[in-house]
């Protein structure tokens, strides 16, 4: 009896072991090269499906399998813990991308000829994340951190797009006195507070804040006072229940005309239109300062294309071919037409009238990176900002930011 059960156990374990190893082997031996394309944008699944089908038609020997999962960054991290790295990846250009690049997970793209075809400012943004001169991916699309507004209501109330911080507050004041809600705030989801935060911080934090903070030459307390105060002042123009409503509820409410302005990036436009196809939405850059010429639009790398450092030979070639394919002008144009984001490829422009007001910023290069992409992710700044918006204590909040920063760095 004992022997039998030990034997069964042995068979089971061997079976487990073999199935665990099986997948990889097939991919190398089979005629078709199979690659997993792990990407983090729920909205883009169908767009990628179309592009992948086109690619596979041109390259019948390569099989690309798209993989989108919710909470993809967390999933990716737990997969990395098992040393299970997706072959091709489309990631957000944020702190996590920087950490992966630093840890040597991503392949080097430093000599890639395609780098010359994309806008340099976005390459630099990515380099700043991992702090080296090398490249570990190619920026594909970029987004914009904006204020969305209801065009019909603006016309109705005789409003114009504000160009300075004072005008912005005056606009909100006018809307309020007309009996409408200026902003629909959705601070139940902590990250939504980071939209105005990023616009304010990018314009007000001053030159080289992150670099100087790392070496201890400056602090949040010194540079972020005005950011915190201006963010807090937005609460004067809210609806009744800021901390009870989340992102999805906000999209629906704004779509139904419950607020005139909505502090969200262009990525929310799709789901707002879904809730109300007739709404006319516009987007402008939050004017964080009073000097019109100084105000910058916050824009970041929405998707960076990269691949695993473990790939070599034919697989690496195929992966690179796919990345290059996506970056071709025609395909890049198709992607941004579908997704309403902006392309990093030179000469590919977003022509949707909805984002007309943002064009001058892109053309003149008045672009700033997302400040929060450079905070260490262990700090979890969104929750700290949410807490601050609840109690309004600027001094304590800035102290806390500095403390958390130091603590996270001391743990590394």
């Amino acid at each position, binding site marked *: 009896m004992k022997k039998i059960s030990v034997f069964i156990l042995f068979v089971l374990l061997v079976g487990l072991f073999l199935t665990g190893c099986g997948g990889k082997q097939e991919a190398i031996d089979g005629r078709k090269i199979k690659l997993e394309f792990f990407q983090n944008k729920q909205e883009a699944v169908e767009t990628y499906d179309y592009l992948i089908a086109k690619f596979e038609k041109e390259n019948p020997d390569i099989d690309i399998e798209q993989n989108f999962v919710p909470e993809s960054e967390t999933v990716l991290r737990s997969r990395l813990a098992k040393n299970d790295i997706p072959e091709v990846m489309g990631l957000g250009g944020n702190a*996590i991308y920087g950490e992966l690049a630093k840890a040597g997970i991503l392949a080097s793209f430093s000599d890639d000829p395609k780098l010359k075809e994309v806008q340099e400012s976005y390459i630099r943004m990515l380099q700043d994340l991992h702090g080296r001169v090398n490249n570990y991916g190619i920026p594909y699309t970029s987004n914009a951190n904006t204020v969305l507004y209801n065009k019909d209501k603006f016309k109705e109330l005789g409003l114009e797009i504000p160009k300075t911080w004072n005008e912005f507050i005056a606009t909100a004041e006018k809307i309020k006195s007309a009996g409408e809600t200026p902003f629909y705030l959705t601070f*139940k989801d902590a990250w939504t507070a980071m939209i105005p935060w990023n616009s304010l911080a990018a314009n007000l934090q001053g030159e080289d804040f992150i670099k100087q903070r790392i070496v201890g030459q400056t602090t949040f307390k010194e540079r972020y006072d005005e950011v915190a105060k201006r963010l807090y002042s937005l609460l004067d123009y809210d609806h*009744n229940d800021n901390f009870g409503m989340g992102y999805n509820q906000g999209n629906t409410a704004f779509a139904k005309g419950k607020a005139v302005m909505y502090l969200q990036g262009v990525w929310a436009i799709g789901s707002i239109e879904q809730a109300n196809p007739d709404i006319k939405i516009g987007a402008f850059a939050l004017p964080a300062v009073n000097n019109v010429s100084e105000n910058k639009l916050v824009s970041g790398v929405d998707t960076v294309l990269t691949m695993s450092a473990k790939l070599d030979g034919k697989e690496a070639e195929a992966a690179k071919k796919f990345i290059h394919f996506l970056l071709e002008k025609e395909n890049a144009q198709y992607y941004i037409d579908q997704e309403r984001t902006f392309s990093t490829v030179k000469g590919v422009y977003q022509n949707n009238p909805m984002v007309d007001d943002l064009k001058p910023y892109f053309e003149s290069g008045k672009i700033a990176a997302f400040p929060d992409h450079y905070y260490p992710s262990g700090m979890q700044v969104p929750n700290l900002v949410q807490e601050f918006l609840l109690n309004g204590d600027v001094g304590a909040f800035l102290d806390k930011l500095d403390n958390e920063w130091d603590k996270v760095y001391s*743990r590394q």
Partner: protein
Amino acid sequence: MAIPALVLFFAFHTLPALTGLFYSFTNWRGYGTWEFVGLKNYINLFKDARALDSYLFTFKFAIVATILVNVISLAIAIGLNAKIKFKTTLRAIYFIPNILSVLIVGYIFNYIFTFFLPDIAQVLGINALTKSILGNPDLAWVGVVILAVWQACGFNTLLYLSGLQTIDDTLYEAGSIDGANKWQQFKAITFPLIAPFFTINMVLAMKSFLMVFDHVVALTGGGPGRSTESISLLIYNGGFAGGEFAYQTANAVIYFIVILVISVFQMKVLQKREVEV
């Protein structure tokens, strides 16, 4: 037959636990390279105000929820054990919340707290409740308690019911002949005789409430601010989303010890009570 069980237990339980313990002495981020850092993670943990806050929240939540669940479950169990109509159907109904997934129920409760309650409060003119309590850092934990208690009662009621069935009816007959009223009967007969069930219910409830995770995820995601961040959620958030795998593993090790100590302590104290009776 014991050896395969031992091997399986070791492979799928002890080994991962030991691996975790091992990593808590490194600076592993969950991927890439790592090195030993000694007790640094543990020392940093004791300096971390955020960890302390989450311990405070978790204990506050667990104690209140445990007491409420046991009081309510015992009351329901006694009710369902009495001679009433539709006894079996009612028992099934009271057990239903326990079968449902917390995440799904959580979204329903989310709706209740966000729209339903504020609307009612508005009509009744109760100003304090016109905003979602989940958006209020002082009240959000109450929302989590309500969901947790509602959901957990079914299971504990079931345990109490099986305890109540072990009591011989003749004891109550004897009691009523002696002229004891219902409360005296409960105090002198029912409660002492189900003491072992009381012990196990207290320990189980406390343990599962200390490990609260999905309730918080479904209702508040740890917010507003960090007011409802339970220890499990902190370990998950910091470890996976925050990239501090080794540091939060150290947190998990300490947390394991804390739960172990509390459970053993509860058993000792409560079992002593059983013996005295």
